[in-house]
């Protein structure tokens, strides 16, 4: 086991000459691809019980890896003097495992983008209601993708830095995307105003206490509060530190425990919601 994890830790494949490295990496990727493709028909031929057994086993082993890596003691220098005291034998595999999860996430992004483009292409071709918006989306998508990819390649020196490319990217990114982002976030300020005017009504004693406390904090945390009275910032800080913090902590405990319980149910395949 130590030899295997040492091999993983040294990432030996990356120390090979480039041609061998590319060959090995290609073989590994192709092998993984064939394995996955081969598994799909095998899984489909299995009866539902068999399929469930495989899924439960794989889920358990995957979760066990992360749990074991966390709980196993790290300092084994008493037994293996040359070991790193900050990790156990599973720790070197954590980084590659996280990288695999990121790659799966990137694949999912491709899937999502494909779904989006397919939907809007179909809308445009079949002239469904509001197909004009679909055309706008598709044109924006293509134009932004072209300029973004070319800009990144230009940053790395793979393509020449064209003034037209720079100008185009600047117009799309700096003057359009960033400003639209800021504008959408600014909507929140206006929406808060209308929501507060509509919802903050004194309908009970608790609502009154909540409302007046909120007003004290709202005016206490801004410079105007200090200008009106030095007591207002002190009250606001006190409310935040001694009323807000314990309540946040209590909710965080509950959410954390709930999340842990849910994770245990998923790990042990006791949760039958989505699976």
């Amino acid at each position, binding site marked *: 086991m130590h030899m295997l994890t040492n091999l993983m830790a040294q990432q030996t494949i990356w120390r090979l000459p480039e041609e061998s490295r590319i060959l090995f990496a290609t073989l590994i990727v192709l092998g993984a691809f064939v394995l996955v493709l081969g598994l799909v028909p095998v899984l489909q031929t299995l009866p539902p019980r068999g399929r469930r057994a495989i899924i439960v086993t794989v889920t358990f082993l995957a979760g066990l890896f992360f749990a074991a890596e966390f*709980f196993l003691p790290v300092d084994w220098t008493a037994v293996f003097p040359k070991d790193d005291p900050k990790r156990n034998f599973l720790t070197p595999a954590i980084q590659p495992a996280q990288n695999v999860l990121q790659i799966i996430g990137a694949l999912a992004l491709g*899937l999502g983008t494909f779904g989006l483009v397919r939907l809007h292409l179909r809308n445009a071709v079949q002239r469904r209601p509001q197909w004009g918006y679909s055309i706008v989306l598709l044109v924006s998508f293509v134009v932004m993708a072209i300029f973004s990819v070319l800009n990144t390649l230009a940053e790395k020196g793979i393509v020449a830095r064209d003034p037209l490319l720079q100008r185009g990217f600047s117009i799309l990114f700096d003057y359009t995307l960033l400003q639209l982002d800021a504008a959408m976030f600014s909507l929140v300020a206006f929406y808060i105003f209308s*929501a507060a005017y509509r919802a903050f009504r004194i309908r009970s004693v608790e609502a009154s206490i909540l409302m007046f406390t909120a007003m004290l904090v709202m005016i206490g945390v801004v410079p105007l509060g200090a200008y009106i009275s030095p007591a207002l910032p002190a009250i606001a800080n006190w409310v935040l530190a001694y009323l807000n913090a314990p309540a946040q902590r209590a909710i965080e405990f509950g959410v954390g425990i709930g999340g842990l319980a849910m994770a245990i149910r*998923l790990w042990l395949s*006791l949760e039958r919601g989505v699976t």
Partner: protein
Amino acid sequence: MSYQHAQDNWFSAILIGLIALAVLVNIWRARRGKELYIRRIPGLDAIDEAIGRSTELGRPVTMIPGMTDFGVVAVQALTIFKYITKQIARFATPMRLLSGNPTVFAVAQEAIYDAYNEAGRPDLYDADSIRFLSDRQFAFASGVAGLIQRERVAASFMFGEFFAESLIFAETGNMVGAIQIAGTVSFTQVPFFVAACDYTIIGEEFYATSAYLSREPVLLGSLVGQDIAKLLFALTTIGGVIAASIAGTDAPIIKLLGQPGGWDAFWSSVLKGGGQ
């Protein structure tokens, strides 16, 4: 700080183990047939009412898991949406599931298809009703807001992890007169949902939702285990306050329990007779 392994703070690791034990023991008890009580959660009772309203008005229902990364929160959100979809399938109400995360989108497609299948209406499944809009926060927000406005949705369910875009969804839904039920673990967004939605599910009620809706013994047992764990935390806090008040915060036993690496301080000061 630097809690990469259990050895960095054995006290925390033991607490995690105790919580897991409480959950598993109560799941076992529930499976043995023990009756377990769960209190009413008004927001969840209103789901059927919201779906009924949508059906009467002939307008769609939206389900929004937000920008949640695929994990425990997303699975819980999709479990709730699966339940809602089964109810929707009874009335053939149109629906839209709008996701801001591509992995959640991929899993949602399967989950919703399963839901229609389990409800006996696979013919109602429309792949285009589950959409990945964008993983950019405000591009997603503007897409959702636009869709809610254009389709004049009658009911909006928002479950998952939300950030600044939460108020944009909620207020837009309010503008079109939709009945809105939100549930989130992001407590900084709870005030916005409370102000703009009809019902809000806060904190661990979100995790209790699947137990509440399905009444499955395993899930109810897990919920009781969570409550016992919370009680344990409360007792630990009170005990810690009393112990720290009596012994002082520098006492080895307090450092053992309360600080990362406190185990080292305890061994060196008490067992090796180093004082302090």
